[in-house]
Every structure is written in C-alpha cells, then in structure tokens.
C-alpha cells in the first residue's frame, strides 16, 4: 500500500533485540494499517492465556494508512494488545501530533514484547533506533516526562514526538492509558498498565522520512473541498445557556437521519463540552451512577454551561491534519485548589463521569481532576465510573469510613472525590482497591457490590446511556473491546449515510427510538455496518468526528483509493472492516473470553427503570436477541458469538495468519 511504510519495528524488551521487518503487502490490502495491522499481529503472536501484565503480552503502537498523506482528520495513532482490564482484546486511539511521527521513522507500527529489567524508553529517528535508560524519567508524571524527554532528545529543529506513561501506568493500573501532547491520552483498555509492566516509560520519535500516496493531487483535492466546507460552517446564534433547551428536543423519542457535517460547527466552537449541556436533559448522560434522572442533578446545566469553559480558553488547538480543532487550553490560574496554571479543555466524557454521574456540581473540580488524571495517565471514563461505584457502595452501607481511609464518600462530595482520585493514582490506601477499575474493585470489596459496578466485560461504561441510544445496547456488549461508545451508535449511524457507500447498510429513517431496542434485522444490519466502517476508519488513522460528519463530507473511500492507488468499492472496504472486527473477536476467543458472558448491567437496560426524566420507564428487554442478531449479520454464531469457520475462511483470515513478516 503506497501510503504505508511497509515495515514494522519489533522490540524485545527482555533481550533488547530490535528489528525492522517488512510486512507483506497482502496484509495492508486486507486489513489496512492501524487497528487492523495491530489485530493481525496480535492475533498471530500473543499466545493463548498470556498474562496481560507479563512478558508474553505484546504492546503495539500503530499509525494509520492515511496518516501523513494530506488526508484530513487522519492523525490518530492506536495502541493495541491484550487488555488487563477485560482479559481480551484491548485498543485505544488518540490524537495530537504523535501519529505521523511513527511513519516518519519508517514504520507503520512498533510492537513490544518481553519485560525490561530496568526502566527504558525507545528512541527512534531516521538512522537511530535504540532502547535508552529511563531511570531519570521514571516516577515523573506524563506531562513532565514528555517535556523533559522532548528537551533531552531534540537534536535540531525537528521536535521529537513522545508517547509516555504517568504514575498510573508505572503502577500497572488496569485503567491506565498512554499520553502524548501534554494531556491527550489513549485511555481505554488499560494498555498504559501493560506499558508499565514492561518498564517502558516512553516512545520518542524524531524521524523525518516522507510519507507518500499514489495520487497526491487527488488526496489534496479531497482535502481542499472538505477543508473549505468546514471553514465556512457557521454556528447559528446559540449560546451555551440555550443548549439544554435543544437537549430537551433531542430527548424526544424520535431518531432520524441527519447531515453529520453539521456536527462540525458545534465542535469548532465549544469542543465536546457542548454535549454536557445537551446530554443531562436529553437522556444521553448517565446520571448518579446510572440510577438518576435530570431532577437528581439540580443545577448541572447551569454549572456545566460550555460558555464558562470557552471564557477560560486561551488557545484552541488542532490535532494533526484536523481542520476543525475541538481541542483547547484553559487558563486555570484562578481555579481554587488547582495546582497547575493550565489544563486541556476537558472532554465531555470526563465532565460527565466526574460531574453528573457523581452528582458533583463543581466545574472547578473537573479541571483539577482532568489535569490530575491526564498527568497520571489514567482513563477518566473508567476512573469516574469506579468512583461512582465506590460512592454508591458507601451510600448503601457496603463501605464505611473505616474502609475509605476516612473519606465521606457521599454523592457530590467534591473534596472527597478529588482526594479519592489522588489515592487511586498513587495506589494509596483505599485508592489501591479502586485503581484497577470497578470489576476488580467489586471482587476485592465483595458484599454484593458487583451489582453497583457499571461495567461490561470488565470495561467501565462511558457517558452515553444505552437506553437512549438503542444501538449501544448491542455495541457495548458485542464490541470485542466492550463498553466503548466510539465504535458506533445510532446517532452516528443517522449522521453518516452509510447506505450511500455500502449496498447492505439500511438507510436511516425517521422512527421512534424504541425501535432501536427491538431485535430486528434492520437494526442488526445497521450496527454491523457501523462497526465495520469504524474498523476501516481506525485502519486509516481517522478521527470519529470526521467519521461522524458522514460519507458525503469525509470521503474515506475516495481517500483510501487515492492514497493507495486502488479502485475498490465501498463494499470491498466494508469487508475489510468485517475482517478486522472478526480478527478482534477471534483474539477474544483465543484468550478464553466467552462472548456470550459479556452482558450489560441491569441499569444500562432499564432494570430497574428510571423514575424520572426522558428515559423514565424505558427498558431494553431484548439485549440478548439484539446482540445475537448482530453476531449473525457479522457471520458469527448467534448463540456463542464465535466467528463461524466459513466466515473466517471467506474473509481469508487463516491465510493471513500464516503470513510472516520478513527481515
């Protein structure tokens, strides 16, 4: 594939051996790069039963097939491996400026195996590739370590790009992520803990090799049209205070197709915090550990008005090749109790997980927690859900102050929440009980606490209620890395018009949201199509906000054909997505995960149902049937979720697994 470098770097941290190896072109043709390349490599090379925190696990850091070609929205890198959180497939992706740096060093991915005796980091540029002593950086938070590694590694004008773990990763937390750009994080799946278990502090990349594409003029033309469109989008005259009113409209029980391009203007202005004001009243945001309605979080809309955040913004920033720029830096010098003068604009997920999910009405505390967790390199989704779990355990008497190191863990106790986050980062006292996420914490606590842990397959649920978006009933449980909203949702499907690039994707229609909670073939086709498309997007290194803009704005198929010099159809590419998704599921089966045992907690399905708000009384009684139909559309067994042998054969997976990388 012209736009890929055609090689990977394999690093054995036990022996110190490093080798650059060629990848057969058939691999790129069949799985692209990014998550697909990672899925192929890990399925082939991680032995069954490997300890996620042991030497047999492999940690992969991958770039995308479109990254660096000039394609917009394609600056995301992906980390892959066996998740210590779920015991199955793990991946997470992240923006910033790190993704192209991988390819500029001449490889599409770096795979680490083994465990180093002492802390090390990998340094790589056009000529050098070596493991270096990281003792001086071990113990530093991710932001500080990145700063020092950048300064210490920079030779000329070229700024090295760094992916690094903080204290959470060093402490082998199962909810640790990997950070870059001073506060961005590949957070999910606990792969920062895997990196820490290998005593790999960082990856520092300073290459400058060119990245090619087959038809650069066509790539440029596609980017020019898209960039112009986004630049000209104007936000209607709506203030942040008006968003809850819009949210109430979104809470109506209707779902309909829409032009996803329109999402760009809101993200340009506010970034993802705009969703907080919409989500509390629309039913999108889980509240009070998934047990409450808007009435249970009074004042949340006023406190989390995104205009307040906008007023603190000192600079907007864009990830690599992003024309939208939803990121921003905030001046937090006047935030009481804040140790740092600035923080990245918190993402919606962070805001909700540490705000309304905990009945915490303090925006200031969100800034503090955001910076603490970004520096520690801990997933805010999992951390927030785990704190919610602990608070509810305290509220119902499962935990007392004797268990919590004296913390009064009541709903909305801001100071106790901040103190607990610090303990989790340091694995100190009660924080150690929670530092590996809610499922492991519930096992440690016992006393029937499992029912209060809002996790699926070990992965904490994010800030989108599956009762509001029925596709999530399927995705949260059926996704091989469960509990992720980023693989797909009804809203995304409505916005993307996949029916215009895929012959089997049903057109989105105006309908009652409850129809998404029914086990119908239409819903199953939609969930499968969306998941397959997202795998393709991940293989390209694409951003979900680009994806959400729809196939008429983000022309992924045209981009891939231009970059690779191919002339493949949408259906061809969707098959790549199905292949990657099937490989990820096969990885789980190989590692002993029983897909049928991965089930959503009752509250995510309306058991017990909410007593107020837009989701009052809403239930998802057919979750098992929905998942089963999704599996069947994927060509997997409807009862077990195991990919059918004929599907595996038809997708050519066995032949791909027999292929070897070559020196």
């Amino acid at each position, binding site marked *: 594939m012209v736009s890929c470098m055609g090689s990977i770097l394999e690093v054995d941290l036990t022996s110190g051996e490093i080798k650059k190896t060629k990848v057969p072109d058939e691999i790129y043709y069949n799985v692209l790069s990014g998550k697909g390349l990672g899925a192929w490599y890990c399925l082939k090379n991680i032995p069954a039963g490997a300890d996620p925190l042991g030497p047999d696990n492999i940690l992969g850091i991958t770039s995308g097939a479109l990254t660096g070609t000039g394609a917009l929205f394609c600056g995301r890198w992906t980390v892959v491996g066996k998740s210590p959180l779920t015991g199955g497939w793990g991946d997470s992706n992240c923006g910033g400026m790190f993704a192209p740096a991988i390819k500029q060093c001449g490889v599409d991915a770096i795979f680490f195996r083994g465990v180093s005796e002492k802390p090390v980091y990998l340094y790589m540029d056009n000529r050098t590739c070596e493991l270096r002593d990281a003792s001086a950086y071990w113990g530093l938070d991710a932001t500080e370590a990145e700063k020092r590694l950048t300064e210490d590694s920079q030779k000329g004008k070229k700024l090295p790009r760094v992916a690094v773990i903080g204290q959470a990763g060093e402490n082998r937390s199962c909810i640790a992520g990997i950070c870059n750009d001073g506060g961005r994080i590949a957070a999910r799946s606990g792969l920062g803990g895997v990196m820490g278990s290998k005593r790999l502090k960082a990856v520092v990349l300073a290459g400058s090799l060119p990245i090619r594409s087959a038809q650069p003029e066509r790539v440029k033309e596609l980017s020019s049209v898209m960039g112009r469109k*986004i630049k000209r989008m104007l936000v209607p005259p709506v203030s942040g205070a008006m968003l809850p009113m819009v949210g109430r409209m979104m809470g109506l029980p209707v779902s309909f197709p829409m*032009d996803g*391009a329109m999402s760009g203007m809101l993200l340009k202005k506010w970034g993802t915090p705009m969703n907080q004001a*919409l989500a509390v009243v629309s039913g999108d945001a889980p509240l009070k550990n998934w047990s409450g309605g808007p009435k249970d979080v009074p004042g949340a809309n006023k406190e989390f008005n995104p205009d307040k955040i906008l007023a603190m913004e000192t600079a907007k920033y864009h990830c690599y090749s992003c024309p939208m720029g939803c990121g921003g830096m905030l001046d937090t010098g006047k935030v009481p109790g804040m140790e740092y003068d600035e923080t990245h604009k918190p993402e919606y997920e962070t805001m909700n997980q540490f705000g309304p999910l905990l009945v915490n009405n303090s925006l200031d505390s969100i800034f503090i927690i955001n910076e603490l967790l970004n520096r520690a390199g801990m997933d805010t989704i999992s951390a927030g859900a785990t704190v919610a779990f602990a608070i509810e355990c305290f509220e119902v008497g499962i935990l007392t102050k004797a268990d919590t190191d004296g913390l009064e863990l009541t709903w909305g106790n801001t100071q106790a929440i901040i103190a607990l986050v610090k303990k989790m980062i340091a694995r100190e006292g009660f924080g150690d009980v929670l530092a590996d996420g809610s499922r492991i914490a519930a096992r440690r606590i016992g006393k029937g606490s499992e029912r209060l842990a809002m996790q699926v397959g070990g992965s904490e649920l994010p800030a989108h209620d599956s009762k509001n978006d029925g596709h999530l009933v399927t995705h949260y449980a059926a996704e091989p890395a469960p509990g992720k909203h980023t693989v797909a949702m009804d*809203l995304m499907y409505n916005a993307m018009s996949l029916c215009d690039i895929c012959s089997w994707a049903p057109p989105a229609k*105006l309908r009652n949201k409850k129809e998404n909670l029914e086990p119908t073939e239409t819903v199953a086709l939609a969930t499968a199509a969306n998941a397959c498309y997202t795998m393709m997007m991940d293989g390209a290194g694409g951003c979900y906000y680009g994806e959400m803009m729809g196939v*008429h704005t983000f022309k992924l198929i045209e981009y891939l054909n231009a970059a690779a010099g191919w002339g493949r159809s949408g259906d061809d590419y969707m098959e790549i997505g199905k292949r990657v998704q099937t490989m990820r599921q096969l990885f789980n089966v190989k590692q002993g995960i029983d897909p049928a045992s991965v089930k959503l907690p009752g509250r995510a399905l309306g058991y017990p149902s909410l007593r107020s708000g837009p989701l009052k009384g809403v239930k998802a009684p057919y979750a098992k049937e929905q998942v089963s139909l999704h599996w069947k559309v994927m060509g997997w067994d409807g009862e077990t979720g195991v990919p059918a042998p004929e599907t595996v054969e038809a997708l050519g997976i066995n032949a791909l697994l027999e292929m070897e990388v070559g020196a």
Partner: protein
Amino acid sequence: MIRVKVFTPFGLPNKKLDERGWMELPEGATFGKAAAGLGMPGPVAKICMLRLNGEALPFNTPLKDSDVISCVVFIRGG
C-alpha cells in the same frame, strides 16, 4: 439529470426522495428550486436553516450532482 442527497428536517418523509434520500433534478436546477420542490419555499427554508453542502448559500446557486441539502441540526457526541 442530476441527483442530490437531501436530509429533510427531522427526517420527515418526502415523496420527492427515493428510499436513500436522493432527489433527481434537471441539469441547471438551483438550490431554491430544489427547496421549493421539497415543499420548503424560501421563507420556510430560511426558518429551517437549510444549507447546501453545509453552507448558507443563495437560493439561486446552481446544484451539481451529489450535492447535499440539509438543515442545521444539533448532534451530540464526545
């Protein structure tokens, strides 16, 4: 003939559209003509904040094949 993709307000069905939301128009048709054909003459189109390829363009703008007509919507996410 040209084909344009249409997202009606709230996804309301419209007989001018095929199952996948495409509308056929003669070569040279304008944004305004398409809007009127959808039952949204100028004032209604303005209230619905109708956009052509994401932009608030004049209604006399000629349409091209594969253009997208849509109204402003709010999309959650994050």
